[in-house]
Structures are given as C-alpha cells and as structure tokens.
C-alpha cells in the first residue's frame, strides 16, 4: 500500500520535527441551515492534519477550531453506536472508522449527509423513517407461551450461528441510505429493517418468524430489493446484507411451496 503524499514543502505545524506527519487536506462539506437558507451549499475547509487520524477527528477539528456551527452526530466515536454514518467521497461510511490516509487526501474529501432522508442541519438527518421501518418488523423476541418461563431458553451453537451475521447491526443506516430503491421511495422497508427481521426470523427461540415474513411479503418488502449490493458494500460492520435479504426471500418462497 502506497504511503500518503507527505506535504514536506508545507510549513510544519510543530517546528523542531524534521519529518512532520502532517499533511494539508481540504474537506468539502455539504452545509445546510434551514434558518439561513433552504438551499444546501458546499463549503471548503483546509487545514493540516495527521493522515492517520480519522475523518471524525477532522470534523472535530473543524467544529472545535474553525467553525463551531458545523453540526453532525457522533456518540461513542469508536464504530459501535452507529451515529456518524455519512457519505464520505460518495460512499457511505462511519466517520469514526475511516482513516484520512485511506480516502485519497491529496484531493478534496467530500462529506455529505446520508442520502434518502430529510436533512435537518448540515450532516444531521431525520432518522425517523428509518426507525419506523425498524419498528415495523418487530425487532424483539416473541414467544407464544403466556406464562413466565421457568428456565433459560437454550440454543445450540449451530442455531446461534444461523443468524450470527445479522446480530452485528448497529443501526447506523449506512445500508438503507445507500439503497437506490430507498432513495426513490422511502416506503421500502430498506436493508437495515430486513437485516433485523432476519436476526429474529432465523432465531430458533423466536416464534413470530411467520408474522415477520408476512410483514416483509408486503409490496414494499423484500421483493423491492434489486440486489445491487450497495448495502453490503456500505455496511461498516461487514454484514452480508444482500445475502440476508436473499435468505428472507428464500424463506418466503419455501414457506409457500
């Protein structure tokens, strides 16, 4: 892997260090403030930063040192909470898991809010439609017995393995907001909701798989998936999203025939 271009000619931020790790980067941010204008605009920020830092660190630098009005979501900053999914250089990623050196910092780095959802301000979008679809698939354990269980619900390692991949979802919406069908018609459940339905449909302890399949058999359910694999590419947790959707499709078909 090629080392990033080091800006040796530029002024080193800390004199005394012969080989400064700092490079000059340009961040091109999509700014939107409904109190100022109903149009979103691009704004460039140029500064020096260590290329081994993450995009989130650069955003922090902008917010803390350059322009305090920049608005974005982040919480844990370590790729678990799923707050800072954004469109970086045209691809959905978590800002806290993307190193600057990996996204060609010699060119301006574009950062936009994720697509397909209403932008509230700068990089913050309204996640409500996303979570509405998530709630619609009933992402919780449902059993038919009405009495309180008297013993643990045991499960074999193989049964646990069946849905292991889809338990990794952190609900960052990177997949759903990379789906072209969702961009155009938000009534589509979207990959994330299907992934979380998959997690319970294939759980041997759960007894509402049938109900969830019926929900996803909807006109705007799994059949709207066009298998473009955008979701699998976008997932920061490496979930094989399109495969999970295909498994739900197969379960629906084998249930009918």
């Amino acid at each position, binding site marked *: 892997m090629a080392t990033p271009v080091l800006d040796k000619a530029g002024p080193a931020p800390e004199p005394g260090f012969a080989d400064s790790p700092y490079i000059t980067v340009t961040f091109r941010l999509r*700014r939107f*403030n*409904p*109190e*100022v*204008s*109903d149009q979103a*605009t691009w*704004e460039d920020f140029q500064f020096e930063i260590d290329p081994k830092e993450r995009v989130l660190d650069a955003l922090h630098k902008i917010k803390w040192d350059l*322009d*305090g*009005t920049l608005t974005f979501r982040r919480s844990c900053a370590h790729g678990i909470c799923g707050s800072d999914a954004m469109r970086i250089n045209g691809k959905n990623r978590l800002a806290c898991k993307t190193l600057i050196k990996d996204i060609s910092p010699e060119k301006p780095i574009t950062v936009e809010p994720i697509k397909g*959802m*209403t932008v509230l301000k700068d990089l913050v979008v*309204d996640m*409500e*439609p996303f979570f*509405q679809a998530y709630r619609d698939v009933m992402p919780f354990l449902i059993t038919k017995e009405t009495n309180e269980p008297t013993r643990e619900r045991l499960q074999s390692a193989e049964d646990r393995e069946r849905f292991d991949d889809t338990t990794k979802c952190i609900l960052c919406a990177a997949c759903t907001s990379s789906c*072209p*069908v969702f961009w*155009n*018609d*938000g*009534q589509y459940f979207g990959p994330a909701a299907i992934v979380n339905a998959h997690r319970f449909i294939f759980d041997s302890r759960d007894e509402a798989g049938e109900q969830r399949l*019926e*929900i996803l*058999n*909807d*006109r*705007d*359910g799994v*059949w*709207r998936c*066009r298998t473009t694999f955008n979701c699998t590419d976008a997932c920061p947790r490496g979930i094989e999203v399109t495969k999970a959707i295909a498994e739900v*499709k197969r379960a*629906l*078909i084998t249930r*009918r025939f």
Partner: protein
Amino acid sequence: MSTTESTTSGIGPVEGASVYTVDNPAPLIEPPRKRTPKTPKATRGNFELYGWLFMRLSGVVLVVLVIGHLLIQLVLDGGVSKIGFAFVAGRWASPFWQVWDLLMLWLAMLHGCNGLRTVVNDYAERANTRLWLKGLLYTATVFTILLGSLVIFTFDPNIR
C-alpha cells in the same frame, strides 16, 4: 447595546446573504417518508412473491426459447435468407411451433411488462406519473399479446 453586537451573533460565517433569520426561518421541509394517513396501507397477499418468482422461471424458459428461435431463424439452414411467407406458413402448420411461438410471445410480453412495472415503481416519483405510465404499459402489453395470439391461432396460409 451597540450595533456590532447584533452582527456578531453565534451563527458563524455562512455563504451568501440570507433572507432568513432565527425569527423568520426558512419554510420547513416535511419529511417525505413520514407515516401519515396518506401512507399506502400494508398489502396482504402474495402478488409480489409470485411476480418475483415468475421473473426467474420465465427468464430461464425464455433463454431456451429465444436462443432456439434465433438459431432457427437466423443461423441454421441458410440463415435469414430462407425466411419468407412460405417458411412461416410451413412452421405454423405444426402445433409444436405454434405452441413454441405462443409460449415465447406470452412469456416475453409478461416478463417485459413486469420488469417495466418494477422500473416504473422504482423511478416514477409521483403517483399520477406511475398511474399513467403503468396504464400505457398494460394497454400495450394486452394489445400485443391479444394480437399475437390471434395471428398464431387464426393464421391461414391459403390467402385469397
């Protein structure tokens, strides 16, 4: 209260002079995907499932039918130069080729129609656009299927 105080507000530099202020905000943009009373109701039934399955199965059958059709019509036994009224009349004298062509007509038309239906659903944003495009699509499909079936069933080589 000096005049400079009002200009140095908490809002940082934003490109372009604004007509909107905190007291006069820009019009609120409704979330386009909010669940409202107008949101389409959840559908029950297996139409989309059967549609999806039909696309796969008809696709496999069409590969055989169409490639066979192209081979016979354009490649084997003299190629395209042999095709004429007599050639078509000779083929449609056999029920086998009648069934072949009828199957190809129906499957290709329904496959294409369903494919375009999903394209319209995916790309047409307004409900009215969808309605008109799909109406046009279904009309054209029904017309072509009926006309083609009519010709295959009522073809009479003895003109005049």
